[in-house]
């Protein structure tokens, strides 16, 4: 049986990974939009993103657009694989093996 992923299973990180996994490969999501999807505070989202980045599940890009700083986030291939494995685990748990 598959094992749960401790990093992903936390509620906010699960939402973050789910939101980023919905993007196509190579697409980046702006911090503000991710915050709107996850419905978390700036600080909370930043903390969870740092945890996911440390695990190698997300990549974070910081740049300036004119004079305004912009942070964008994308899921990595490792992250996508880990998320798929965690979803498989959850499905196994409820007996959905299709």
């Amino acid at each position: 049986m598959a094992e749960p992923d401790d990093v992903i299973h936390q509620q906010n990180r699960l939402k973050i990974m789910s939101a980023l996994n919905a993007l196509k490969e190579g697409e980046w999501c702006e911090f503000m939009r991710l915050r709107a999807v996850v419905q978390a505070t700036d600080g909370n989202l930043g903390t969870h993103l740092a945890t996911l980045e440390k695990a190698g599940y997300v990549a974070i890009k910081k740049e300036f657009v004119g004079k305004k700083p912009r942070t964008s986030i994308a899921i990595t291939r490792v992250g996508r694989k880990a998320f798929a494995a965690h979803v498989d685990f959850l499905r196994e748990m409820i007996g959905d093996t299709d």
Partner: protein
Amino acid sequence: MAVSQQEARDALQEIAHTHDRAKVLQGYATAAPHFFIWGAVWGVGYVVSALSPPASAWIWWILIVLGCFGDVVVARRQRRSDDYRLTWRYPAAFVIFVIFVFATYYILGVVPNDLRPHATFPPLIVATAYCLAGLWFGRRFLVAGMLFAALTLGGFAFLKDTTLFLFWMAFLGGGSLILVGVWLRRV
């Protein structure tokens, strides 16, 4: 880490909900710059048509080409730069749109010298497309389509003077597209 069946079920529901929400918001963000481009195209096109009706025969072709070019540039910035299949759908969609509009004029016999029906029909098709998109890709597209259709039909019904109607389409039609772009971007 122990995960109960109920926790697993809740987590899967949360994943599905977040996935759907992310898709809708991503769709809004992707669409917003295209609304800015076409709002500007409508605005300039209708102002020129109002000030110089003979120029409307060619100005729209230039603006449509510029609009399609803008769509391609925006789409390539939003996606991987090597993905031509996605970006070239925009001009292709407009070729289909223009053929459909002229085929309809031909079949229904719209009077060639009357600018009002010519200026009303394409925006109504666009409004319909937004309404249909709203049924699948997010309610804001539906609201945008209904607003755009109401402004277009309202102008056509109540403004019988062609010049006044064209200015109405420029400022309220084009302007509403730009405002919808801002609204989609801010979500």
